[in-house]
Each structure stands twice: as structure tokens, then as C-alpha cells.
């Protein structure tokens, strides 16, 4: 119980008025950063990092990590209100969050998203507090085959259950993979699919595709139905927070599963984005209302948000204990640690007790502060939907353009965003599913890298994917998930045959 004492010491370190003030500033800034697509947590932290050099390291890391929490919270806002995911891991939140907003349930969706984020983060922090050394070692088990199996599992848990025509699912997914392959190939260093056009070298960033497909595409769709967003009738009532809270306990099982998925993927540096997709896929499969997912189910918001935040938070653990950044944001924080003269790595917990436990304490406090701030703003956020369409639409287009530009500081990306917008509109109308496209775009090149690294290691022997219990288990689970619908159909078929025979 030495850890508990250390934690309370940490609270004492974190709970000075100055640090509390920094927490509030950090969370508020973070929310703003999270709302603006293109300004990710990594940007915010990178930009503010120099300002913190004059502070004591503990205060600095508290403020910076609070920006991180704030950004995690903020990402959900635009996804739900405008179908524009501010952060990669909020894409899955749009699937049910945006339909809810359209039905006038924006407040409910936002409350559920914020609360689930909080729960996810809290569970992850508790895990960090008590299991840090144990869990950190687990991250080391992950070599290329294990990474591939995680991505494989993510794909398998997500596909195979779409209602769209199968050829269209296939085409959309392959388009995603193809776009992901553009640019330099990690394994051979060759440029692929750029046809001598050097502007394409940086590849198609998934955020640009998503801002276009979802954000611009949605505006075009709304326009077709007339000059308004259908969410205008949103009731704006502070009570919505409590009404939603009353509904949440029902979904404890979804929450718990998503926490597990999130923590696991956060530790294994799989990241928040796969975690959110996987949790959504798993929830869809296991929920009683699975078939209704995508039409505005509360569970469909809870699952990805919980997982994304559990992952985002537990991603800090490998960073602190091993010196491996679990996300780009963590990577920038890592740079900060170095500048303050702290050396992340296995010895940090021994040499810088104050710092580590102060940080962990600030994770608890920062999340609580964040939750309070964003929840009080729910009515305010929901009220944005009441702004007349002819004002909000051009502003959204501007914000989308900014978001697309900031990803790589490239003008071409704004044009690409527009093109993706048109594609998003056409695809949606023709029932091409966007989710597999986006998923393939996010994970496609990572999965391919991991696969080919594994092949190099095994000299082309596919058995490496079943060479130990960890990788074999994940691959097996993935295959099971992939074949499950077929199995269901086969049973259905048998039953019908039997019925026909009788």
C-alpha cells in the first residue's frame, strides 16, 4: 500500500491553488483545441510547451496533461453536433452521436459522451495507479506480429455486419486501403502511387478525408433537404444532464467492455483510434439493440468514447514507465520531459516520485475538472445548433478548411477535402458505407507495415501469426469474429431447410 501513500502525497503536490488554476486553464484550452479540427492535443501541447519552461516541472506537466484531457473531451463536441470528428478517435462517435443530434437529442448525446469519457479515463487512471509496473511489462510483449493481430482484430470486429450491399462495402474498404498506401512505403522506402506528383508524397491523411467525407458531405446532404440542420429543435435544458445520467447505468456492461478494450489498446501502443472503432464494433455485436446502431443509440456513443479515453489515458503509462510514447501527443509530452531534465523510462518512478505521483494525481483531478467544465457547457454547445443554417454552414466550411490545412500545412489538402466532401455526398446517397473506408484509411498502412515486418522476421513464414498464445489468441478471436455472421447465416439456412422439410 505504499502506492496509496504516494498517491496521497501526489494529491498534496497537485492541490495547490496555483496548480488548480493551471488545471482549469489547461482543460479550457484543451476543449478549444479539441473542438477545432486540425488543432490536435499534440499541437496544443507543442505550442504551449515553451511557455511552461519557467514553471516547476510538476506544475507544467499538470497543465499540459490537462490540455490533453480537455482535448479528449472536446473532440466529441463537433462529432456530435456537426458530424465532423475533431480528432481521429471521435470518428466512431459520429456514427450514433450525430443521428442523436439530428433527432434533437444533442444534449443527451453530449452528456453521455462526456460522462463516458470520464469513466474511461478514470478506470485507466486507477489501473495506472495500481498496476503500473505490471502492465508496463505487457507492452514489451508487442512485436510486429502482435501489432498486426491487433489491427486484424479491429478490422474483424468492425466489418461483416454492415447492411449495405456487400460489393459496395468491399469497394469502399479497398478505396480506403488504396488511399492509405499512397506515399512512402516504410518497409522498402519506395514511393507508391504518386505517379510522379510530389505533392501526393505525404499521402492522404485520414483527418482530411474524414473532414471532407463527414463534415462537408453532411452539409451538402443537409442542403438537399432544405436550408436547415435537422437538429434545430434541440431542447436546451440543463436538466438533460441528470436525465441522461439516469439512463447510463443500464449500459454498464458496454462501458466495462469498452474500458477493457481501451486500456488494453492504450497500453500496447495500439492507440485511441483503433480502440474506439473496436469498442463500437464489439458493442454493436453484443448489444441487444445492435441492429439499430447507427440510428442514434446511446450505447453507440458510450462505447467509442469510453474506449477512446481509456486508451488515451493509459497511453501515458508506457510513456512514463518505458519512455515509449503511445501517441503523438504523448511523444510531444515526452520531449517536454526531456527539456525539464526529467528522463522518462523505467527509472522515472524511482528517481522522480514527486513528479510521477503529482502527474497521476492530476489525472484524477484534471478529469474531474474537465467533466465539470464540459457538462456545464452542454446547453451552450447544444444551443449552437439553433444558429441559423445560413450562418453556421459557411462557418463550418471555414473551420473544415482550417482543419484540413493544419494537418500538413498544405494547400492541396483543402482541395482534397472539397473533393472528399463531394465523394462523401455521393457515397452516402448511393449507400456506399463510409466507416470501412475510414477504418481502412486509418489502419491500412499500419497493418501492412506490421504484416511485412513480421514477414521479414519470419522470412516469409505465415505461421508467425500463431507462434505464441498472445498473437495466436488475437488472430483466432479475429477470425471467429469475421466468420460469426456466416455461422449465423448457416444456422439460419439449416433452420429454414428443416422447416421446409417438415
Amino acid at each position, binding site marked *: 500500500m505504499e502506492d496509496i501513500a504516494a498517491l496521497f502525497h501526489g494529491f498534496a503536490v497537485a492541490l495547490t491553488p496555483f496548480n488548480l488554476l493551471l488545471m482549469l486553464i489547461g482543460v479550457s484550452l484543451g476543449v478549444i483545441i479539441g473542438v477545432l479540427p486540425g*488543432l490536435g492535443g499534440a499541437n496544443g501541447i507543442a505550442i504551449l510547451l515553451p511557455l511552461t519552461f519557467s514553471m516547476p516541472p510538476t506544475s507544467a506537466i499538470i497543465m499540459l496533461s490537462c490540455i490533453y484531457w480537455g482535448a479528449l473531451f472536446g473532440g466529441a463536441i463537433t462529432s456530435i453536433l456537426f458530424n465532423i470528428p475533431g480528432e481521429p478517435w471521435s470518428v466512431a462517435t459520429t456514427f450514433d452521436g450525430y443521428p442523436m443530434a439530428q433527432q434533437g437529442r444533442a444534449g443527451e448525446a453530449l452528456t453521455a459522451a462526456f460522462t463516458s469519457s470520464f469513466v474511461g479515463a478514470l478506470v485507466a487512471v486507477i489501473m495506472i495507479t495500481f498496476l503500473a509496473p505490471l502492465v508496463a511489462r505487457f507492452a514489451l510483449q508487442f512485436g510486429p506480429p502482435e501489432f498486426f493481430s491487433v489491427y486484424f482484430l479491429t478490422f474483424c470486429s468492425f466489418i461483416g455486419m454492415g447492411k449495405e450491399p456487400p*460489393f459496395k462495402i468491399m469497394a469502399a474498404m479497398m478505396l480506403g486501403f488504396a488511399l492509405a498506401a499512397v506515399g512512402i512505403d516504410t518497409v522498402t522506402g519506395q514511393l507508391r502511387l504518386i505517379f510522379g506528383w510530389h505533392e501526393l508524397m505525404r499521402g492522404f491523411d485520414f483527418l482530411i478525408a474524414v473532414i471532407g467525407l463527414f463534415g462537408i458531405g453532411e452539409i451538402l446532404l443537409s442542403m438537399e433537404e432544405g436550408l436547415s440542420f435537422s437538429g434545430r429543435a434541440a431542447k436546451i435544458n440543463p436538466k438533460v444532464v441528470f436525465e441522461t445520467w439516469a439512463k447510463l447505468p443500464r449500459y454498464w456492461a458496454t462501458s466495462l467492455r469498452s474500458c477493457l478494450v481501451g486500456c488494453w489498446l492504450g497500453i500496447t501502443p495500439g492507440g485511441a483510434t483503433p480502440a474506439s472503432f473496436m469498442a463500437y464494433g464489439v458493442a454493436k455485436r453484443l448489444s441487444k439493440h445492435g441492429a439499430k446502431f447507427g440510428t442514434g443509440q446511446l450505447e453507440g456513443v458510450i462505447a467509442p468514447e469510453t474506449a477512446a479515453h481509456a486508451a488515451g489515458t493509459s497511453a501515458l503509462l508506457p510513456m512514463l514507465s518505458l519512455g515509449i510514447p503511445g501517441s503523438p501527443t504523448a511523444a510531444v509530452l515526452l520531449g517536454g520531459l526531456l527539456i525539464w531534465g526529467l528522463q522518462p523510462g523505467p527509472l522515472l518512478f524511482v528517481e522522480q516520485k514527486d513528479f510521477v505521483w503529482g502527474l497521476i494525481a492530476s489525472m484524477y483531478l484534471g478529469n474531474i475538472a474537465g467533466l465539470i467544465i464540459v457538462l456545464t457547457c452542454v446547453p451552450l454547445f447544444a444551443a449552437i445548433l439553433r444558429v441559423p443554417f445560413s450562418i453556421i454552414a459557411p462557418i463550418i466550411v471555414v473551420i473544415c478548411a482550417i482543419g484540413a490545412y493544419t494537418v500538413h500545412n498544405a494547400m492541396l489538402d483543402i482541395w482534397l477535402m472539397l473533393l472528399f466532401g463531394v465523394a462523401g455526398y455521393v457515397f452516402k446517397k448511393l449507400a456506399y458505407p463510409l466507416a470501412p473506408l475510414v477504418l481502412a484509411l486509418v489502419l491500412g498502412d499500419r497493418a501492412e507495415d506490421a504484416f511485412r515486418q513480421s514477414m521479414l522476421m519470419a522470412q516469409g513464414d505465415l505461421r508467425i501469426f500463431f507462434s505464441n498464445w498472445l498473437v495466436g489468441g488475437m488472430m483466432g478471436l479475429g477470425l471467429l469474429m469475421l466468420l460469426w455472421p456466416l455461422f449465423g447465416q448457416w444456422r439460419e439456412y439449416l433452420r429454414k431447410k428443416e422447416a421446409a422439410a417438415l
Partner: protein
Amino acid sequence: MSESPEPSHQETGGFSTRGAEIAVAIVLFALGGLVVYDSHRLGSSWGSDGPEAGYFPFYIGLIMCFASAAIIGQTLLGRGAGRDAVFVQWQPLRQVLSVLIPAALFVLGIQLVGLYVAAAIHIAAFMRWLGNYSWLKSVVLGTVVSAAAFLTFEVWFQVPLYKGAFDPLSFLGY
């Protein structure tokens, strides 16, 4: 992927879904073909130590071609989406274009005069012509939003946004 003019439209007024289906599938088929072509150039076989650079893209391209060909086939055979359905009627299409064309002009504007100026004009123009707000309100709001963006990105977060080929705001020193 682009919204190139679909060939056939029907009396009911609007692009037919059938035409749109086929047009999109043809574009996808062409993209798939491009992918196959370039992957083949890179080397698309399974080498001694695993797949070459073009191995996965090659098959991805092939599957894309196959899937889009299948979509074309289904559409022509009259299965899939309803045969006579209308993809978009003329009136809504006009509305869609009334957003899409200003958005395209806006992006062109960014290229020329930079994001901030283009944003102010875009918002003001959109409000004036599509929202029928007064000139004063439109211009004020456009300027305010653009100025807020400028302060947030250039001044506070120090994220330089695109200033355009002519950079009319260069006197601000950012």
C-alpha cells in the same frame, strides 16, 4: 469520385440513381486500375522475405476493379437500388450546388488571397445571398469570425495558416 455529369436523366426531373451508380463505379474501376498499374511497376510478387512494396496495393486495386464491375453489372441487370429511382431532383440539386459552388470559390479564394480574407468574404456572401441578412450584419459577422480565427491561430497558438499567393494581410507582420 467526382460528380461528373451523369449521362442519363429522366422525365421525373433529376439524375437517375442508375446513372449515378454507373458513373461512380466507373470512377472506382479507373482508380482501381491506376492502383494495379502502379503496383505492378513497383513489384507485386511475394518475395523471399515477404510481400514486395506493390503486393498489397496490387490486390487492393484488383478487388476494387472487381467490386466496381460487379456494381455496374448489378445496376445494369436492374438489381441493387431501384431501377427508376432518382438520385437527386433538379431543385435540391440546385440547393446543393448553392453550397458547393461557394465552397469551391472559397477554396480558390484561399489559394489566391489567403484563408482569412477568403473566409470573411465567404461568410458574408453566404449570409447575404442565401440567408438574406442585411449587408451590414453579413460583413460584420464575416469579419468578426475571420478576425477571431486570426487571433486564435496566428497570434495565440502560432499556427500559421495559408496566406494566399497575394497575401493581402502581410502588413500585419504574420
